[in-house]
Structures are given as C-alpha cells and as structure tokens.
C-alpha cells in the first residue's frame, strides 16, 4: 500500500529511517483503531507522537512493541521487512519500551530492576558484581547521578529518578529504538527537565527515540520530528521546525490545519 495522501517530508540529511511503518491497520472487533498508518523513526532523532486521547498512540506503540499484532501493514527495519509478533521479537530487533506505569518492582534495588529477566550468572548463581558494574556504567553514561546508592530499593526513589531508571533499563540492551510512553506525566518541573535531558542524551547516543506526549512544551523542547495521530489516522509527520504549537493542537483536535503556513504544515487526512 502506498502512502497516497500523507505528508512525509524528510530532511535530506537523515537518510533511511531505522523503522518504517507502511499502511499499518489494527482493529479490535468492530472498532478500527489504526487506519493505514505510516510512520518513520530515524536513528539519532526524537520523534514525538502526538494525538488526543483515543487517537491510537498507545495502540501504535504496542503494535511496534509486539504486544498487539497488526492486521495489515509493513514494518521495515533498517530497510528490511520484518515481522513483529511478540515482545520478544521486538526486543530482538533492539526495540525497548518504557511504559507509563514504569514496570519497576519497588522492593528490588536499581541494579536488580535494570537486569530483571536478564540476570547475569556465574556458576549458576547471580553475578551481582558484574551486573552492578554494568548498571552503574549505564547510569553514568546517561548522567543519572542523583541516586544515593545504586543498591537502594526503587521504592525510595523520586518520580524523576524512577523514570530515569526505567529509561536506563531500556537502553542497557544495545537497543536501537526506545519508545517512551508519556515520560514526563506526573513529574514536577525540575524532574521533567531531568528526564528530557536524559531523552536528549539517548538521541545523542544515536538511538531512535519515539516519545508519546500530551505536553507540547516537552514536545517542542526536545523533539526533532513530530507525528500527529487523529482518530487512528496519521495526519501529519514532519520536522519540528515545520510546526508551531497552534498547528499541532489543531492537527490533534481536528485532524487538519486550515491556515496555510508556507506549505510547511499543510496536510491531508491519511486515506483509509
């Protein structure tokens, strides 16, 4: 299926996207959640996925993460067609997701959480030294330096620190694409800044980042590209410089944009 009507303007320097979605459709019973969605995610760029409640942001994320299987559509990973049926498939490609509810175990410490499910062993027993070293290295490269001890239980961390640990956990595994679901929801101003700095560092490390966010301040602060979903359709995706706040809001709420902005923000509905 060709993306007939979607506006996809790539800056010439970005080259081939890391992950290319073409014509993705998903329905749950009679409810169509995604109509013919195209999406390009580039390495070394932060793509903000915007949309009102029920626009299909979470469904799209879960399709990429392998939690849902798409009904139709093509996934191209580094230019090659791939099939993602299970979370394991997406993890194997190097896709990690940081969910809104973080999925950390409060009673375990930072190292234990970061290695949960992928513990390193020596002689059949947990290799704590190795794991602690690797975890502290990852935290150091991401400059997550505010925790008192890497061995403190996650329950004793602040919201921003917890989010940082969840993100660090996602990037430990040589991941290439990190998807963040509302990473700054419920965080204060300072903590939001800390998490956004962390997101920038992921980009600077050359990862592709997809960030779902309602918060346009955050979006305009960090995103290189913005993609807007409206009622299951991808209505526009472009460089951030092509948008202003008002146009994004209008795309999110009406699916279109009436004031022409030098052609930059002009978009049509995705066909279905």
């Amino acid at each position, binding site marked *: 299926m060709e993306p007939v009507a979607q506006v996809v303007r790539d800056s010439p320097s970005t080259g081939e996207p890391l992950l290319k979605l073409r014509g993705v459709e998903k329905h749950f019973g009679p409810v169509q959640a995604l109509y013919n969605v195209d999406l390009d995610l580039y390495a070394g760029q932060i793509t903000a996925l915007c949309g009102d409640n029920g626009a299909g942001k979470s469904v799209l994320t879960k399709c990429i993460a392998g939690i849902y299987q798409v009904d139709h559509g093509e996934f191209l990973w580094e230019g090659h067609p791939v099939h993602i049926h299970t979370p394991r498939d997406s993890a194997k490609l190097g896709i990690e997701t940081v969910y809104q509810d973080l*999925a950390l*175990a409060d009673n375990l410490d930072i190292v234990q959480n970061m290695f949960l499910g992928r513990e390193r062993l020596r002689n059949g027993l947990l290799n704590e*030294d190795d794991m602690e070293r690797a975890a502290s290295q990852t935290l150091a490269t991401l400059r997550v330096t505010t925790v008192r001890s890497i061995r403190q239980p996650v329950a*004793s961390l602040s919201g921003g620190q917890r989010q940082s640990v969840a993100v660090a956990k996602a990037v430990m595994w040589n991941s290439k694409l990190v998807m963040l679901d509302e990473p700054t929801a419920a965080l204060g101003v300072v903590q939001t800044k800390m998490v956004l700095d962390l997101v920038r560092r992921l980009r600077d490390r050359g990862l592709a980042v997809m960030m779902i966010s309602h918060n346009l301040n955050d979006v305009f602060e960090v995103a290189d590209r913005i993609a807007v979903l409206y009622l299951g359709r991808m209505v526009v995706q472009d460089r951030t410089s092509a948008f202003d706040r008002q146009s994004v809001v209008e795309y999110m709420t009406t699916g279109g944009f009436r004031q022409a902005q030098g052609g930059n923000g002009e978009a049509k509905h995705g066909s279905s």
Partner: protein
Amino acid sequence: MARVEAPESLPDPTAAPEAAIVEVPPELVAQSLGEWFRAWLARVRAGQSGVLPVIVGLLLISIVFTAISPSHLYLSAGNLVNLFQQSAVFMVLAMAETFALLLGEIDLSVGYVGATGGVIAVQLAQPVTAKWPWWGAIIAAVLVCGMVGALWGTLITRLRLSSLIVTLAGGLIFNGVLLIVLAVGPFSGYPSLTGNNPNLQVLYKLMWGTIDPTISWIAMAVIVGALGFLLWFTDNHRRRSGLVAPPVSLTLLKIALIAIVAIAVVAICSINRANIGTLVGVPWVIPIVLAVLAVWTVLLQRTRFGRYVYAIGGNREAARRAGIKVGTVVTWCFVLCSFTAGIGGLLYASYLGGMSNNVNGGQLVLYAIAAAVIGGTSLFGGRGKVLHGVLGGLVIGGIYNGMYLLSIDVQWQFIVTGLVLLVAVTIDALSRRGATSGSTARV
C-alpha cells in the same frame, strides 16, 4: 528548537525527599561504623528496622521468663535445647510459608500437608508392615508433599483460583487424608517411632539424636570459618572493585556475631542437661534446620529463581513484562512450600515419637504464618527472608516454653502469642506506610 545542554553535574534536583533517605539500607551509604549506626537508627525510627524488633523481642522474652521462671530455669542449658526442639517445627513450617508469603500469596495447608508427610514416613518405616528404609520413607514423604504443592500451584496459576481458598480446602482435605493414612496397619491409629528397628531409630533421632560434642566443635569451627571467610572475601572484593559494600568494621562485626552465636549454641549443647546420667551434644535438629535455612537462603537471595520470586511479590506486572514466566515460578514456590512443610512434618513426627490423630494442623499453620510475620516477612509480598521464619519460630517457641515452665494455662499462651503477632503485623503495616509516604510523585 533550543537545545539545552545538560549541565555537567545536576545540583541534585530530584533527590528523594528526606523521608525516603531512611529507606536506603545503611550499609549502602555508610563509610564507617559510626555513620552506619546513625543511618540505622534513623531507619529504626522510621519503622524500617529489619530483624531488630524480633531480636529485641527474643531478648525481652528471655529476660522476663528467666526472671519469673522457677529457679530461673528458662536460660538453663537443658531448657534452651528443649526450647529449640519445640520451636524447630514452627521454624521449618514458617520457612515453608515464606515461599507463599513472598509472592503475596498464602498457604493454609502447610500444617496438615506437612503432618501427612510425617505420617507417611512413619508408616513406611514400620518394620512390621511397609519395611521401607528410613531414607526411602523420608524421600517418599517429602516428594508426596512436593506433588501436593504442585497441585495447589497448578490450580492457583492455571485456573486463577485464590491461594487462600485452594489451600484452605487443601488443609481440610489433608486433615482427612492424614486420618486415613494413620488408620492403615495394625497400630490402632498410632504408628510409633519407638523400638529398636534402625529405620525407626533414625526417624526418631531427627529431633532427639545428638552429635558428639567434639565433632560438634570441629564442625562448628569449619562452618563458621568458611562462612566468615566467604563473607570477608566477598565484601573485600566488592570494596576493592569500588562496588557498593559495607564498611570493614561492619563486615568484621557480622563475622564476630556469627561466631559468638555459633560458639554459644555449641557450648550450651555441650553442657550436660540430663537430670540423671549424661545427655550432651548438639541435637540433630539444629543442623537440619540450619541446612534448610542455608539452602533456601541461597536459592532466594543468590539465584535467578529467587530474584523472580521477589520481583513477582513486588510487582507482578513488571515481572511479566520482564519476560518472567510468572505462572511457573508461582507453581514452583508452592511446590517448595509444601516440600519444606514435609520436612517440618518429619520433625514433628520425630518430636512426638510417632503420629496420632491429635495433630492440630490448623494450629500449626497459624503458628507458621505468625512466626514468619513476627520474624519480619511481609504478608503483602516481596519482603522477607527465610531467616525471619527461624527467628519468629524462636519467639513463638520461647513464649510457649516459658509459659509451660510457669505452668500457665494454655489459654494464656494463645492470648500472648496472639498479642505478639498483632505487634508484628502492626510493625509490618507501619513500615509499609513509611515506605509509601517516602516516595512522593510515584507514577
């Protein structure tokens, strides 16, 4: 868009609020013993006290009962060994229950399932009927118990039934099974372990056999030496590699404490505790309980399986998303719970010198849960250790023993044990509340 360069060092803007600092175990941040002690005091004040309440409780019980027991009998060598033997069944059943409690589940069947294991072993070893060797009887007993646990685990995970109801029903069923197995053979419902048959003797000695004092001292020295060396080597290695490690003085203090407790236990057991003749040596049951404690501690603290148990107890959804096969781990926990209960049942049969229909498995399981919780294991999952079961078992056995010495009626023993349990769950709930208020802005 404006790219804000991250400052080289953030001025700790998101440091956890003051209340949360006390949740960090002191050995993680302290550089010296003094610092450790201050951090530890702060934690105790905030209700995060680890095994402290149960140790204080044990000391209090010892002081009170020594003061009021006839001719201060409570702390005599004979009574202390007796106390340990009385507590051993509670300890092992509490260690069994820990596997269920760590998941946030509960197993109400450990009393009757364990007792059924005990009666199976006693019946199989009878020289006039089954004629099994002692080891065969023991293996059969614990395997049957383990399979019962597999059944509970399967019902709970595959059919998503509540563990409370499944094991409540299971406890009732095995009360009946126990009576049926008891009635087998020509023993009028009372298969006994007395007699000169070597297989019966071994089962009897699980609780009542003693180890020669010389061998006890040598074995103790070897075990404490190995444990001390391991502790020292591990902590030292971590300190040198720049990993999180306790201060040197704390490591030494731990080793010293282990050595003191071990020497005290062997010394007490080496005193003649018989009224007439000699009765000395460490009872077999002490190394048996310690072996169960050691193996389950390694399993829960040092293996992947143990890590998954804690993860499931802390956040089941997080565990599932991390790719942990939650159903399999939960099922294995119920297997291990019932298996350990089988060991407790063997000790119980040995303690009674046989089995009879007087076994009150309903009360045993309540004492087992009480012991685990008194020791510091949370009923809400994710927090606790098998060691807590041993300490809590000592508290319950200590109260039972002390009141028995004073010839106080059994109704008061129930009331006092109940009050101690109330105190323990209050501490658990308060420390949980502390933990929740500690992390603000939890997403």
